[in-house]
């Protein structure tokens, strides 16, 4: 047992616990917080793999922006405890076997390939400079395309979430809530 393995296991345990808690909780805000724990643990794993810039971005973008958006929406819509319905039981019947199947498959992978080459701590320099050079030279075109994607997403979100247009003439406005 070396330090690297211990840290891997610690972060991994947090991630696994968070993922299971996400499934177990019925209130969306608890699920959201478990997901944040998973993301923070994954940032730790990235650090172990030497991807320090990625770890920082993971925390800033995922935990700090995307999940804040989720929590914000949960607060805004005042989402309560989810109710179980007929459909959910059917999904349950499919979900649990799926999870089991996945676990068995993974176990098989471990047994089969447990001798794979080990990944050293900080094996790859994922520092901002290298990443930036790669991003703006080799991956310039995908980068630009994603910026267009983001722009479209912004416009879409603004259009979707903005106030519904004034109702057409002759149709009375529907009273909400």
């Amino acid at each position, binding site marked *: 047992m070396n330090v690297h393995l211990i840290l891997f296991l610690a972060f991994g345990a947090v991630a696994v616990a968070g993922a299971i808690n996400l499934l177990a909780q019925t209130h969306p*805000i608890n699920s959201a*917080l478990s997901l944040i724990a998973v993301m923070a643990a994954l940032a730790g794993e990235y650090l172990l793999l030497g991807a320090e810039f990625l770890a*920082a971005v993971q*925390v*800033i973008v995922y935990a*700090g922006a995307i999940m*804040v958006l989720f*929590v914000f929406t949960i*607060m805004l819509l005042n989402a309560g405890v989810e109710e179980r319905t007929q459909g959910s039981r059917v999904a349950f019947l499919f979900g649990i076997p799926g999870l089991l199947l996945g676990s068995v498959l993974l176990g098989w992978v471990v047994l089969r390939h447990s001798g794979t080459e080990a990944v050293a701590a900080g094996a790859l320099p994922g*520092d901002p400079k290298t990443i930036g050079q790669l991003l703006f030279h080799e991956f310039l075109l995908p980068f630009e395309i994603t910026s267009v994607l983001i722009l479209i997403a912004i416009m879409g979100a603004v259009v979707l979430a903005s106030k519904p247009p004034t109702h057409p003439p002759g149709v009375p406005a529907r009273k909400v809530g």
Partner: protein
Amino acid sequence: MALPIWLFILVSVIKSAVVLVVLLTAVAYTVWLERKVVGHMQNRWGPTRVGPFGLLQPAADGLKFLFKEDLTPPHVYKPLFLAAPLIAVIFALTSIAVIPFGNSVTIGGYSIPLQITDVNTGLLLILGVTSIGVYGVALAGWSSNNKYSLLGGLRASAQMVSYEIALGLSLVGVLIMSGSFSLRAIVDAQGGHFWGFIPRWNVFPQFIGFFCYLMAAYAETNRIPFDLPEAETELVAGYHTEYSAMKFAMFFMAEYANMITVACLATLLFFGGWHGPIFGPPILQAVLPVFWFAAKIVAFLFLYIWVRGTLPRFRYDQLMAFGWKFLLPLALVNLIATAIAVAW
């Protein structure tokens, strides 16, 4: 010379303890400074009774917070209600870990940097920690199960996410000029002078960036004129309406610790950190950088308080419009101009 591992751990623990004690004291005395300065601005005396000039007031306040009844209202969502102040204060105190206070000092042949840890993505770490700090406020608002708290929490999360973009972009200009995320490297790049007399501080070439940073920082720390999440005239006390005693004190500490972090960051990125005139005997030369750093931070804190004593509170739509329609484009323009100037 690199330290042996046990000595490294010992030194780190000592540094963390010292920094924590200094930070908490600074938080307490920032509150005192604020009450005193705002008092004088409003033609009052501020605290005068406890100790000379009211200097022991922070201790009295601390004792009061400790001994007050710690109410937990029956309708709150308890786990998050208890966790929220902890989240707020922990993340507010964490970000100080990468702030350098001065150059290295040499003790017994070992060079020890005046910083808890020097990571080469220090600035990103601070941004990440601040962005997580939103949860403290948002969850406090939500878990209190109270409409004023909820509104405060909603406002806080929307405001902090919005201004974080402007905050990040305003710093990119500095990053382009110094070419590093490491706070120590950024400060080192600011040594020396322009034309022999103006200090080579980033604030001179980057004054637009500094303006954006300052505005965004006020919004990020929920201070007047952007303290909408706790606007007492409309939301009672916003997200901490239901909190009392030590739990309230934790939010209070988090707010002031955030102020200090923001002031540290402004000093490091725009005002040359610990650079300043160095003179006198060797012992003075060793102490002066830390003194300059502290002096600049106090100046920033004074600015905070000054603004609080001067400006009224914005309306929420004005706040959002200012952030998105003015500050963000301005930061972008500054970024592009800096990039062009550097590439030239």
